[in-house]
């Protein structure tokens, strides 16, 4: 059951081969057994989940169910979930029970999906290894001495270890794709504006985008069908007609021939993403994946993303700038952590101590960077320049998509690294996202699919970037690849 696809689970539930309550129990048991060690979940509330499951079973009994009715979904603890602790991985919100639901939670709720728990994450989504969480690091299920990636490390670990069949996540600079790559699962960051940010605790508003994680492209497509949709409460939400992201899964690429379902597909390979810094084991797995795509009929096209090298510096100006302002609301006044009254003298001291104690080191580092780059006299040199670079990077992709249909490459320069290996070197840590950040800056949809194993037998992820709103086609080509391979079916030992 734990290796079943969402389509299979959905069918089993509809055929009453299993009830949602039984399904939830299976996963709650697994969480009980493995979470102590893996630390994928921050909160689990069995009674609440079982009650939701019982409700889903009633819906199924009435015949009033949708594809995900009764299916357990783990939610990144960045999504405000009514009645659930919603911590964003921070001490600052360690006591915050959300009084409202994020749009994404509402959508899953309406679909009848069951909240399985809230997953661990880097504090306020700032991190690439899940080591900045107030709740401690998440372990990579493939090898517990290694990180699962971040910031959606809890969701990635939960899916990879089969503690949940599906999970939500968010991606600001690679926070869906990098942990998906490092744990061997499928994760998609949609076009900016497709998933409402309402109720998704903001890190960097112009870059943050919610998206799903699952075993396969097909599962991810089903999840995206629920997550995506216009929301008038988010001014950056795009008002467009709903679409069925599973519609192209079994449709061959235009001009395809029998046995070569991807004939005509042009895969752009940015030379900047295959050079220095790319680990040979990852390069090898990516090469094998590209060869597989060729077998399916695709063609390689070498392309350039000439401003790609500027993406990390531009990102580390824009994201902290927005974060420094977004995180100002955590001031100890209305909710969340406040320093003990005996420790502060006046208002300013209350602010200082509350924020000094409530935020971890990485969050403070980014608030400082962001405050600095927005300061009087520095704004033009940093923030405005970074915004110009951002436009150049978006333009690079416009050029690229004249020559190719999708861009592929490694999702991460290396496989998962050891816990603790990069904590003292933020720049090395930041470079983890060198291949994923450009898609956030351009607002493009991008995903990572498992494509093999590298050093220490740890998973490698293939990064796919598509043009705006081409999620259905991206998922389709990933699905074709997954029909021909079984990397996405591999499961770590010991869980």
């Amino acid at each position, binding site marked *: 059951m734990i290796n079943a696809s969402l389509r299979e689970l959905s069918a089993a539930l509809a055929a009453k081969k299993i009830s949602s309550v039984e399904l939830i129990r299976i996963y709650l048991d697994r969480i009980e057994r493995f979470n102590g060690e893996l630390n994928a979940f921050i909160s689990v509330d069995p009674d609440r989940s079982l009650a939701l499951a019982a409700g889903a079973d009633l819906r199924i009994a009435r015949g009033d169910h949708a594809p995900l009715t009764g299916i357990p979904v783990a939610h990144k603890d960045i999504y405000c979930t009514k009645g659930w602790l919603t911590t964003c991985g921070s001490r600052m919100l360690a006591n*915050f029970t959300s*009084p*409202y639901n994020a749009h994404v939670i509402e959508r899953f709720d309406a679909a009848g999906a069951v909240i399985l728990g809230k997953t661990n994450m880097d504090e306020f989504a700032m991190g690439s290894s899940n080591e900045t969480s107030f709740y401690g690091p998440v372990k990579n299920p493939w090898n517990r001495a290694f990180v699962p990636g971040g910031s959606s490390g809890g969701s990635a670990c939960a899916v990879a270890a089969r503690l949940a069949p599906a999970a939500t996540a968010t991606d600001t600079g690679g926070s869906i794709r990098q942990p998906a790559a490092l744990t061997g699962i499928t994760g998609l960051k949609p076009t900016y504006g497709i998933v409402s940010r309402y*109720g998704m605790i*903001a890190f960097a508003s*112009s870059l943050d985008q919610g998206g799903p994680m699952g075993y396969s492209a097909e599962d991810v497509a089903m999840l995206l069908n629920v997550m995506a949709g216009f929301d008038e409460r988010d001014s950056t939400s795009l008002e467009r007609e709903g679409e069925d992201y599973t519609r192209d899964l079994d449709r061959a690429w235009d001009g395809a021939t029998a046995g070569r379902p991807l004939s005509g597909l042009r895969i752009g390979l940015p030379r900047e993403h295959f050079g220095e810094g790319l680990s040979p084991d990852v390069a090898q797995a990516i090469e094998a994946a590209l060869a597989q795509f060729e077998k399916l009929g695709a063609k390689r096209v070498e392309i350039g993303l000439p401003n790609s090298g500027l993406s990390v510096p531009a990102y580390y100006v824009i994201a902290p700038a*927005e974060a420094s302002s977004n995180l100002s609301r955590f001031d100890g006044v209305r909710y969340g952590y406040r320093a003990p009254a005996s420790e502060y003298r006046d208002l300013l001291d209350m602010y200082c101590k509350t924020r000094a104690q409530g935020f971890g080191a990485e969050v403070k580092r980014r608030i400082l960077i962001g405050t600095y780059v*927005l300061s009087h006299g520095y704004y033009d040199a940093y923030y405005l320049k970074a915004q110009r670079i951002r436009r150049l990077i978006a333009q690079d992709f416009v050029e690229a998509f004249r020559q190719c249909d999708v861009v592929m490459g490694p999702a991460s320069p290396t496989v998962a690294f050891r816990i603790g290996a990069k904590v003292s070197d933020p720049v090395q840590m930041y470079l983890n996202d060198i291949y994923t950040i450009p898609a956030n800056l351009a607002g493009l949809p991008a995903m990572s699919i498992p494509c093999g194993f590298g050093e220490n037998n740890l998973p490698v992820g293939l990064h796919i970037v598509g043009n705006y709103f081409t999620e259905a086609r991206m998922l389709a080509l990933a699905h074709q690849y997954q029909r021909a391979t079984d990397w996405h079916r591999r499961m770590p030992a010991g869980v």
Partner: protein
Amino acid sequence: MAWETVIGLEIHAQLSTKSKMFSRASTQFGAAPNAQACAVDIALPGVLPVANKGAVERAIRFGLAVGGTINRRSVFARKNYFYPDLPKGYQISQYELPIVQGGAVNIVLKDGERTVHLTRAHLEEDAGKSLHEDFHGMSGIDLNRAGTPLLEIVSEPDMHSSEEAVAYAKAVHTLVRWIDICDGNMQEGSFRCDANVSVHRPGAPLGTRREIKNLNSFRFLQQAIDYEAKWQIATLEDGGRIHQATVLFDPDSGETRAMRSKEDAHDYRYFPDPDLLPLVVSEETVAKIRKDLPELPEERRRRYMAACGLSAYDSSILTTDLTLATYFENVAMHSLKDGEALAHADYKLCANWVINEVAAKLNEENLPPSKIGVSSATLGHILRRVREDMINARTAKDLFSEFWSDARKTSYVRQGGSPEKVDEKIESGGLRQVTDSSALEAIVDQVIAANPKSVEEYRSGREKAFNALVGQAMKATRGKGNPAQINEILKRKLSG
């Protein structure tokens, strides 16, 4: 050489939308603390702002009314600072690209008209309120006001006296109510002024300015500017220097005192709000709002002068409020006899009544023009009877006062009197003016005979004695005599 004071105003007008600038919470004044603060207003984690279309439209209305440029694309920016009544830790405002740029407001002073130019007008949200008095050793935070839509109207430093500044503030106050974008209620804080004041010698560069914050009455505005200008002049004449600062006006002492200096000014770290897309206004939206704009106070004032022959002063008083101006026009219309056109003198009569009786009563009883106690139809009818010489002015005033008292008894829910009642009262009360000259001649003869002393005094050159005789004659008609006729008869008889 004399000092010249230079003043620029920043006016915060609360826009009269039902819900807030970026949330759906109500803007109604007077609710229990924090009863009107929703998830967005209290800045829960994850909430997002959505701009209120009604507020945007009101800002455009204002921009068009002052002849400013409506920027087709304007940008909301975050102004970052920490304060307990600022829930997000930043205020959403407009910085580099405001919705309205330029424009001008004309003001009428005793010695003529002046133009005050506007720099800009931009949309922003208000902060909440900190209550320091009511909680022992603690502060209370009321976020009902947090997120209330404001239009900040920034003038050029075009004013040179507190009189000009007050006239400008009043003109803006009139305009925002006239075009129905703000209720103008200063007690509730719907209309507040900050005044930037500096002094210099004419021809010399501008002096350093100090900003007086949060003046919520025209009287305080005047007092604060007068005090501040005097203080700056005295400081400079004593060899001191003015330092840029934000100051508060204390109405009790009548003084201004520094709140913070430039040295500890915040670095607000303005940047475009990534939660809000640039505000794009279409040509059609602007055209539609322009089409729906009423005749503006300035245009109407000029029309009253040109078409009705009213003085600049009377015209400007009538156009301080749209309801009052409309009332005046309706009174004039109802004072018409059938098929008649009004002459300038008739307009003047109506204007005098609206200014000296109606506006005076509103003032006296502190009522808004929406609570005028006698309808324009009733007052117009009274004045029609005056113009027809059916009743005299004194009777008219008595009728008007009686009707107004009737309205007062209903707490101004209903207006007093009606055109029919006017005629009924005239008939049943025998209030018709006595214009029968033989009757009046007889009365005057009696008065002269009964008051030899007054007659003597008048003849020896004391004009006042004449008025006493007119009064006696009016009394003898029980107030219904035609005063002009009595005057004339009396004069003739006394000189005879």
